[in-house]
């Protein structure tokens, strides 16, 4: 399937291994990525906090660019960041709720020849895997089941709340998709307190201690539940959980050392790719130094 692909900023900035691993797994899942190169940052909630109309206009422009690709054969817009999903869905909710407001925003876009039409479908890779490709199909493509790998899911707030806005209901348990996917890939889901909590990243510059304590506690809870690694669909969570992990350990006063994988990395591993080509070497807590992939995962495939 062809998708209008919005990678977000951080996947091309401080977590290049996310963008890289997405590019690696796409062909293995028959996803054709048409990257929205001219689009801008979603604002991550911060621009909306500063000037709501500005955030809505920037995202309406991204949606309009995606709709051009959809007119050219892409099936929908896809992103790989929980924060993008949440921030963009919030803007979309306002844009779709009011025709006068949408007209007002479109008047700004008109100078560029762009127009946003109500009702774009914008799905995170996680939702796309479950709802468009289907877990049965994903299971068929697994080459190296994640046998004996204990994985702690970590969603990121923006992709699980508020449930009504994000379309989470009994028929679409999007706040359970990570668990379903881990099982599909042959791994073991680790149930722990932090899976749906906040990583603390949004306040890292404002209340650093509280921010790092959030990250440290969540990682610590995953350790206490005997997780081998965590997996997150959000690169901003990854920054606090992995990049800041040494400082988070200091904030909570305990040793941590928990590898945190991006969603496409976990998928890639199960689809048969090697840790190195998935960018595992770029993590602060290197997954390869903590988990012996050659015995726990790779050997199981042989």
């Amino acid at each position, binding site marked *: 399937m062809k998708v209008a692909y919005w990678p977000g900023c951080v996947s091309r*900035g*401080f977590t290049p291994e996310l963008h890289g691993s997405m590019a690696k797994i796409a062909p293995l899942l028959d996803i054709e990525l048409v990257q929205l190169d*001219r689009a801008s940052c979603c604002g991550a909630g911060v621009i909306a906090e500063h000037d709501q109309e500005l955030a809505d206009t920037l995202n309406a422009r991204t949606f309009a660019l995606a709709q051009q690709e959809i007119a050219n054969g892409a099936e929908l817009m896809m992103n790989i960041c929980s924060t993008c999903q949440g921030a963009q869905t919030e803007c979309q909710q306002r844009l779709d709720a009011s025709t006068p407001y949408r007209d007002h925003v479109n008047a700004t876009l008109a100078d560029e020849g762009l127009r946003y039409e109500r*009702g774009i479908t914008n799905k995170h890779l996680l939702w796309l895997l479950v709802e468009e490709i289907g877990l049965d199909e994903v299971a068929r493509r697994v080459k190296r089941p994640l046998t004996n790998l204990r994985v702690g899911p970590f969603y990121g707030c923006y992709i699980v709340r508020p449930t009504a806005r994000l379309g989470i209901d009994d028929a679409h348990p999007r706040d359970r998709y990570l668990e379903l996917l881990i099982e599909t890939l042959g791994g073991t889901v680790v149930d722990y307190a932090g899976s749906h909590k*906040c990583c603390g990243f*949004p306040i890292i510059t404002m209340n650093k201690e509280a921010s790092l304590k959030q990250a440290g506690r969540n990682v610590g809870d995953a350790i206490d539940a005997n997780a081998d690694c965590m997996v997150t669909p959000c690169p901003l969570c990854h920054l606090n959980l992995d*990049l800041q992990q040494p400082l988070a350990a200091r904030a909570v006063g305990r040793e941590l050392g928990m590898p945190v994988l991006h969603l496409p990395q976990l998928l890639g591993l199960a689809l048969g790719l090697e840790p190195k080509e998935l960018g595992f070497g770029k993590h602060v807590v290197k997954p390869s130094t903590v988990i012996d992939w050659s015995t726990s995962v790779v050997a199981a495939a042989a």
Partner: protein
Amino acid sequence: MSEYTLRIRRYTPESGEAARWRDYTIDLDGHRSVLDGILQARDRQDGTIGIRCSCRAAICGSCGVRINGKPALACHTHLDRALAGASEGVITVEPMGNMPVIKDLIVDMDAVHWKKIQRVTPWLLPEGDPPEREYIVPPESMIDITQTMACIQCGACVSDCLSMEVDPLFVGPAALAKAYRFVGDPRDGQHYERLYNLAEDPHGIYSCTHCFNCIEACPKGVAPMSQIMRLRRLAGSRFAIDDENNGHRHELAFVHNIAKNGLLHEADLLPDSYGGKFHPRAVPELLDSLPVILRALARRKVTPAGALLHRHKAPPEVKRIFKQVHDAESSYELNLYVTGVEEQTEEGSVHS
């Protein structure tokens, strides 16, 4: 009538014994509330179950608890609905979080919730002498704050506030929503003072971590986090309060970063949030983060050239939007609570 199993967390602090779960089988129609179930268990099986309640109609805010791990009013949750969200067919009921337990399902609201409400001076502080008759204000200027007036002080948002979980001094969602009730009220004469006070508090408006738990928890649609964002917007944009917590600076640094680069350039965001790379406030912060920065460089997460140079520049169209919308004198701030959602003719699109 159907049978339901309620698994209630029992705890009496002065007994010295640890908390324990006890199962109670109750017999009620599915449309009856979890509170009805708790009261039946108390009447028929164990008179010592502690629960605070009064109106049974989601008005008094007394019976806030956690049902299946999520905060809710016990009187406002149907048994059949609670069962649908339960694992293994057992409805769990436990006291709210972030507040000490007095007994079983009763938490100490005074110790946390009401103390924080008092913290924000929860009464009107008009300027000058009162008018001869009533204050006259245009109705539209009051509609916006009716959302915060809907609060029934149940504490559900406080229970699950993730910032408060790690920082008990955080003023918190209920109190900050209450603060907006007065900051948004045209009759109040202390808007600046209120905002200054909450922006400078190291545990004030800038300690909210955007987790949306309070929005999800509130049984009355108050959306406390949205009110906190309004407080930030007013503190920064209207009153230009340059707080010591880097809140306003971080916001401006982010906006300017995107205006310049189109995509977020993280290497600039951190120092700029502290006032710039060479700002006295930035230096100790950057030194503290040095191990992290060095590790990121060692892992080739970032290259020195990538961190110092800007690969990506905002396209002219993005710059134009910033000029046209951001630099405009007034902003169109759509408030769905006020306007509502217009009727949609076709199917909704959240799932398609």
